[in-house]
C-alpha cells in the first residue's frame, strides 16, 4: 500500500498580486496542494487504512494506556456551543464554567486533592506546572532548594520537566525488588531537595509499598511529594494519591479517563494539589460563590501555562467519561485493568522478573525486544512498549487495559508466544504483513528529510 503525497497529486501556485494590501506587506506567492474534496477524502481514507488504532485491535502499549475511547464523548465535545471563545466573559459562560468547576471537583475527589487546575494541555505540561507550583511554594517559604529527585525508572518527561523548571535532577536507582530504594532515598534527600517525583504503581507495575515511609522521608527533609498520574488508572477507588502523602499530582486524562490519544495529542494534564499549595496554582481557577462561577486569580499564582484555557474540549470528554462511569465504573476500571494484566501475564511464555504487578507488567524478551515487537505486528496486534524501563533486560512493557476481552488477551498471548518461538530470521525480517516493511530509523536520522520540499527522489 502506498499513497502519493498530496503535493504529488496536484499543487497550485497562487500569485499574491491583487490583494487588498500594499505589495510590500504581502508575499509574492503561495504553493499548496489543491486536490478536490473527493480526492482528499480518498487520500485520508487511505492514510487511515495504513494506521493502527485502538479499534483496529489490541494495543497493549505499557504506560500509554491505550483503551477504548467512548464515542459519545466525541459527540459531547461536538455539541453546539461546547467550544466558545476563551475570552468570553464569565457572566456570559456560566454553563461552561460550571462544567469546568464540576470537573475540578471530580478530579479532586478522585485524587484526594484539595484543588485542581485544568489548564495544562498535556501530562508533561502538568508535570511542569506541578513543579512550578512546588517551586513557588518553596520560594514563598524562603526555601532555597535546587534539586528534584527522580527514580531512574521514571518517565523521561519527569526529568525533562524538572530540568525545564530549572532544577538539578537527582536520579535515584531502584532497589533489587524494583521499587524505590528507601535507604538510597534517605541518602539522597537534603536541604536541597525540592521534591521527589514518583509514579505509583511504578513503571514495573509494582505498588510502592513503602510509600508512607517515603513520604515521611521527603517531607521530613522539607521536600514535597509529586505524583505522576500516568498509572493512576490502576488504583481508582482503592487508594488516592492524596491519602498516600502526595502534595501535588497530575492526571493524564487520555490514560486514566479514556480521551483519545489522537496520534500524539491533544491531551490534558490537570494538576491537583493539597490545600497548602492551592494559592500557587495557575490563573485563573474557577470558583463558585452563591451559585455563580467566577474566574479567580490564586493569591500566589505561578501565572499561566497555556495561552488560553487549556485543551477544553478534551477536558469536556474527560467529564463525560467520569460521569458515565461514576464510582462503580471507575472502581471496576482498575479492577479489570489489573485482572487483564495478570491474566495476560499468566498466558505468555516470558520471564516477568518483578511482581506482584498491577495494571501492567514488564516481561523480558530474552532476545531483541524490538524484533519481538516487529514480529508481533505480523500477528495482527500492536506490540508492547519495548526496551524500557531498562531495569528489565530487553523489556516488553505491557498494559492491556480493562477494555480487552479474554479472547483478545488470548490473541495477544498467542502473538507474544509465536514471536518467542519464531526463528531469528523471521524476527529480523519482520514485519512482513504491514503497510511498510521494517523501517531503517537510523538511516532516516542520518539524512533528515523533513518536508516534501526536501525530497528530490
Amino acid at each position: 500500500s502506498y499513497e502519493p503525497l498530496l503535493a504529488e497529486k496536484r499543487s497550485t501556485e497562487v500569485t499574491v498580486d491583487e490583494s487588498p494590501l500594499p505589495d510590500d506587506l504581502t508575499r509574492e506567492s503561495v504553493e499548496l496542494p489543491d486536490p478536490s474534496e473527493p480526492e482528499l477524502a480518498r487520500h485520508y481514507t487511505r492514510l487511515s487504512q495504513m494506521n493502527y488504532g485502538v479499534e483496529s485491535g489490541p494495543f497493549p502499549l505499557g504506560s500509554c494506556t491505550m483503551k477504548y475511547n467512548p464515542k459519545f464523548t466525541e459527540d459531547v465535545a461536538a455539541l453546539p456551543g461546547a467550544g466558545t471563545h476563551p475570552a468570553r466573559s464569565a457572566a456570559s459562560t456560566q454553563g461552561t464554567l460550571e462544567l469546568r468547576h464540576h470537573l475540578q471537583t471530580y478530579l479532586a475527589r478522585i485524587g484526594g486533592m484539595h484543588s485542581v487546575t485544568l489548564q495544562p494541555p498535556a501530562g508533561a505540561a502538568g508535570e511542569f506546572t506541578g513543579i512550578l507550583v512546588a517551586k513557588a511554594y518553596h520560594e514563598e517559604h524562603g526555601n532555597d532548594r535546587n534539586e528534584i529527585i527522580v527514580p531512574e525508572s521514571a518517565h523521561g518527561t519527569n526529568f525533562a520537566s524538572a530540568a525545564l523548571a530549572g532544577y538539578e535532577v537527582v536520579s535515584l536507582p531502584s532497589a533489587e525488588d524494583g521499587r524505590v530504594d528507601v535507604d538510597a532515598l534517605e541518602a539522597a534527600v537534603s536541604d536541597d531537595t525540592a521534591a521527589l517525583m514518583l509514579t505509583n504503581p511504578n513503571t514495573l507495575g509494582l505498588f510502592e509499598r513503602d510509600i508512607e515511609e517515603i513520604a515521611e522521608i521527603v517531607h521530613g527533609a522539607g521536600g514535597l511529594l509529586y505524583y505522576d498520574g500516568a498509572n493512576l488508572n490502576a488504583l481508582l477507588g482503592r487508594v488516592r494519591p492524596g491519602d498516600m502523602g502526595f502534595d501535588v499530582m497530575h492526571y493524564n486524562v487520555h490514560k486514566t479517563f479514556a480521551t483519545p490519544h489522537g496520534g500524539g495529542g491533544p491531551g490534558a494534564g490537570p494538576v491537583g494539589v493539597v490545600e497548602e499549595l492551592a494559592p500557587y496554582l495557575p490563573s485563573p481557577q474557577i470558583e463558585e460563590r452563591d451559585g455563580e462561577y467566577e474566574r479567580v486569580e490564586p493569591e500566589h499564582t505561578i501565572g499561566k501555562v497555556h495561552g488560553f484555557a487549556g485543551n477544553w474540549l478534551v477536558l469536556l470528554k474527560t467529564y463525560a467519561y467520569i460521569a458515565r462511569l461514576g464510582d462503580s465504573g471507575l472502581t471496576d476500571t482498575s479492577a479489570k485493568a489489573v485482572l487483564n494484566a495478570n491474566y495476560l501475564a499468566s498466558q505468555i511464555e516470558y520471564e516477568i522478573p518483578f511482581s506482584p504487578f498491577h495494571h501492567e507488567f514488564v516481561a523480558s524478551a530474552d532476545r531483541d525486544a524490538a524484533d519481538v515487537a516487529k514480529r508481533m505486528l505480523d500477528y495482527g496486534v500492536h506490540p508492547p512498549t519495548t526496551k524500557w524501563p531498562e531495569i528489565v533486560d530487553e523489556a516488553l512493557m505491557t498494559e492491556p487495559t480493562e477494555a480487552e476481552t479474554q479472547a483478545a488477551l488470548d490473541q495477544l498471548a498467542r502473538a507474544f508466544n509465536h514471536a518467542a518461538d519464531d526463528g531469528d530470521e523471521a524476527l529480523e525480517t519482520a514485519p512482513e504483513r504491514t503497510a511498510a516493511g521494517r523501517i531503517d530509523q537510523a538511516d532516516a536520522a542520518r539524512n533528515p528529510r523533513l518536508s516534501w520540499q526536501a525530497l528530490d527522489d
Partner: protein
Amino acid sequence: MSDTGRGSPFAPHTDAETAAMLDAIGVESQEALFDIPEDVRFDGEFGIAPRSEREIRHEIQLHLDRDDDLTAFLGRGHYDHYVPSMVDHLADRSEFLSSYTQYQPEVAQGFLQALFEYQSMLVELTGLEIANCSMYDGASALGEAATLALRARSIDGTRVLIPELLADGRRAVLENYLAGTDATIERYPMADGNADRDALADALDDDCAMVYAENPTVRGTIEEGLSEIGELADEHGALFCLGTDGVALSLLEKPASVGADVVVGDAALGLGASGGLGLGLFATHEDFLRQVPGRLVGVGEDSDENRAYTLTLQTREQHIRRERATSNICTNQAWVALRAAMHAAWLGADGLVGLAEDCVTNARDLADRLDDIDGVEAPAHDRHHFREFTVRTDRSAADMREELEDEGFAVHAIDDQLLQICVTETNAGQIEDLAAAVEVVA
C-alpha cells in the same frame, strides 16, 4: 450495555469470564491482585453517580444552554474560522483518532505521512526549512523558541525582547518557560500598534538572545518593518522569532524573506472556536535542527526500499534524552495538526489566500462602518489590519463591552477607552447587527 451502576460499561467482562480469568491466574478475587497496604487504602466514595450516555449528553447540553447565546467578535490569538465538514469526518476515523504516537512506524504510515504533509505545508508557508509536528499553542511555542535561543550555540546573551503589546497569555507562559533559566524578559515600545523600531534598535545589544515580533500584532495591525527588525536581530546575533498564524502566513510577508529564524503562533486552522484548544506552530532554520523541540517526521526507506515515514531525530526528545532533552513535550497536538493540514489542503492555495484577503477586507469594512458612528473611532491605529482592530471610545470601554453583551455581542475591552473587535467569515454576516448595537451603546 444500557444499564449503569454495575461496573465499567467499557470493560467487557461477564462474571463468568472474570471467574475464569481469576482461576487461570490462580487467585480468589480481583481484590487479591492489589498489593496495597491496608493503611493507605481508600474506603470512601467519590460520590459520583454513574449516568447513561443519553443522560450525560442531555446534562451537558443543559449546562451549555446556560451560556449566553452571543455572537463573538473576539480574537487576540484564538480565531473562529469555518472548518469544513470533511475535516471532522476524516479526522474522526478511529485509525487516526485512537492511535498513539508513531513509535511503530510500520503500522503508523498514515498518520506519519499526514504529519509530514503538515510539516511541508508549514515549510511552504514560512519559507523556513524545518517545521515540527506541533506545540500546544502559540504561547508554548514562543516559550520553546526562547529556550531554543538560550541553548543555541550561535547565540549569546540572555535578554529576551518582546513587544509592549502582547497577549497576556503569551507573555505569562513565556515567563514560566524562562523561569528555570537566567534569562530576563524586557518589553520594547510600540508606536501606533506596530513595533517602535527606533526604540527597539536602542534596546537591542549583543546581550540579547531573542527578539520577538508579531505579524499581525495582537491588536490586528500588520507590521511594516519586519525586515528591519530581522536585520537588527541579526546584527546583534539574536534570534528573530516571528509570531503569526496559519491564515495570515498565506498573505503577509513570508517569514524567511524578512529574516525570521523561528516562526511561532496558533494555527487558526482545523478547529474553530474551541474554548482555547489550538495548535502551536513551530518552524525554524535547519541550523537549529538538533535544537528543535517536539516531534519531527522524516522520510526513510523500508526493507523493500520503498519510501517510508518515521519519527526521526528522537535523541532530542525527553523519552531518550531525559533532563538534557530540547523540551519536555511528549503529547502534543498531533490530531489538530492533522486537521489543520486537511483544512489547508481543502482550501488550497487559492482558498487560503482568499480567506486571508477576506480577513483584511472584512476588518476594513467593519472599521469603516463603525468609524461613522458618533462616539467611536475605528480603527484606533492608522495601520493596515488583519481580522481585528481596536476602537477608541468616548465612553468607558468596559461599560460598552458589558452593554454590547446585553445586545448579544462579545467584544474585547482592552483598555479604559479601547475596544477590540475581530471579524472572520463566521461572523461577517452580522457586521451590520454589530454596528447597530454599537450605535445603541456608543
